[in-house]
């Protein structure tokens, strides 16, 4: 198998290292050769475009240039990174804009962005038939627990931009692990992360709705596919006190714990 470029995102390397470790271990267990560039920067976190859109494109184009040096497929476990990288790649299909951005990259001593790298979210990657069949051979231990799959927004929206439809992928992976899947009414609801500081009331009401649905469904755990969602939901549940606090687990960790 060709080498995959792994783009972890800021949060897994700083304050969600359990996800980072799980992702790396999982790729190793699956025997997928991967490389991670120490040059990778933040994708802008969904907010750099609020300061300067050209700089946002330039920063992400730089990430994609490093990815293109190392492979043809980039996978990331963070939905916001995924959305921002795809947005950059799509915008840079416009030749005029790509020329402008490439001039900025060249001025900083970087190669041109060629537009040949494919960007995928790790969830879609793991649920794709090729990788799923590898997982089927590796998952042995059955987890008998109620879990609520939560997708969040940036893995799906805007669907006109994002190339893959994640519908059902998380359920598929969890069912493989023997989890009792308790579906959410709307698994693509926003967790409120991006409004944590500037819109705390909305953010808290969104996060609380997820937590109360987990409690209603008697789920011991909420499974996430984005470190921002996971961190936001978990911090909120810690703030809310001890009662009915579900575990917040990244899907990579659920898979890993179901393996030998």
């Amino acid at each position, binding site marked *: 198998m060709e080498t995959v470029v792994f783009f972890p995102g*800021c*949060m897994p*390397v*700083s*304050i*969600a*290292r*359990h996800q980072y470790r799980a992702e790396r271990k999982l790729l190793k267990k699956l025997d997928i050769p991967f490389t991670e*560039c*120490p*040059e*990778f*920067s*933040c994708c*802008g*976190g*969904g*907010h*750099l475009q*609020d*300061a*300067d*859109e*050209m*700089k946002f494109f*330039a*920063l992400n184009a*730089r990430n994609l240039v490093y990815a293109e040096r190392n492979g043809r497929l980039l996978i990331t476990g963070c939905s916001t990174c995924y959305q921002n990288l795809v947005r950059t790649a799509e915008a840079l299909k416009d030749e005029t804009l790509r020329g*402008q951005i490439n001039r*900025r*990259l060249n*001025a*900083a*001593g*970087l190669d041109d962005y060629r537009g040949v790298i494919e960007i995928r979210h790790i969830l879609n990657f793991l649920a794709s038939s090729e990788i799923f069949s590898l997982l089927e051979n590796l998952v042995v231990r059955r987890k008998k627990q109620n879990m609520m799959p939560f997708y969040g*927004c*940036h893995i799906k*929206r*805007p*669907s*006109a931009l994002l190339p893959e439809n994640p519908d059902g992928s998380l359920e598929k992976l969890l069912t493989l692990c023997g989890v009792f899947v308790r579906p959410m*009414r*709307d698994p693509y*609801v*926003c967790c*409120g*992360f*991006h*409004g944590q*500081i*500037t*819109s705390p*009331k*909305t*953010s808290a*009401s*969104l996060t609380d709705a997820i937590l109360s649905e987990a409690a209603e469904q008697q789920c011991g755990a909420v499974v996430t596919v984005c470190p921002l969602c996971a*961190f936001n939901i978990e911090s909120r549940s*810690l*703030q809310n006190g001890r009662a009915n606090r579900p575990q917040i687990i990244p899907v990579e960790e659920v898979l890993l714990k179901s393996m030998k």
Partner: protein
Amino acid sequence: MTILRIYRSEGNYDIHHLDIKPETKLLTLFEQIRTKIDSSFAFSSECRRGICGSCAVKVNGIPVLACKAEIGSFRSGVLRIEPLNSAAPKIDLLSDFEPFFRSFSRFPEFPPPDGGLTRHCEPSDALRCTQCGICFYSCPSVASDDGFAGPAAIVKAERFLSDPADRLTRPQLEAAAENVYQCVKCFRCEEYCPRGLKPEHSVEAVRRRCLTLPEDSLGTIHTKALFDSIFHYGKINEVFTARYIFGFCGSLPLILSGIPFLLKRRVRIRPVFSKNIREIRQLLEADE
């Protein structure tokens, strides 16, 4: 066989079992129900071509224009049809649009052009907005009722911002700066807009303009904090941004709330820097 569960103002749902061709438009179906089954059934529609935006309803929670949505486009064979503003319905499928129309007045009226300027205005996407209310009634920040103007009003504000004939005065931009940071970037507005507009891009454009204000708001400080963190580390550093926004003492509660994560061995205390950070700094400094 398609099963329709249609909201009626008495608080119950009418259930219809119908054999419908998948290409049938939802609005055609409503009209058939009104002429053949129940003449008291209320809904609104006007142009029948996706232009006027008056027939928006929710199908299984997803907002659509009834005149454009085909029955076969929904994956489920059971369609739960509700008014757009399902939190405060009026009669049957009619919604109360008052809060939506009021949202446009959140930003003070823009002054008339002062005559001295020649209009060289880029054609704006905002002109295509039909004010159907779909974005407004699917926005979680609007729903949480914290005074957010909502996507449509921000799209309109951006249209005025980019018009050289409309001089934007400081109080107007300040009103926007209070408001536009309430967006949580969930992209529902963009997902559901029947005209394919990108309200999130308008939010970004208005936020960029807010950065030109002489006085900072929480929103502009937040943006600057993230920008500076990326400039400094190449990454978002949580401690750096918290200190930037709330100051040394003010950020302590936030930083201390990370202790449970630290105990779970999830936190790397030494800050992470991107390699070749000079390139990143140059890209963030570059202005053409």
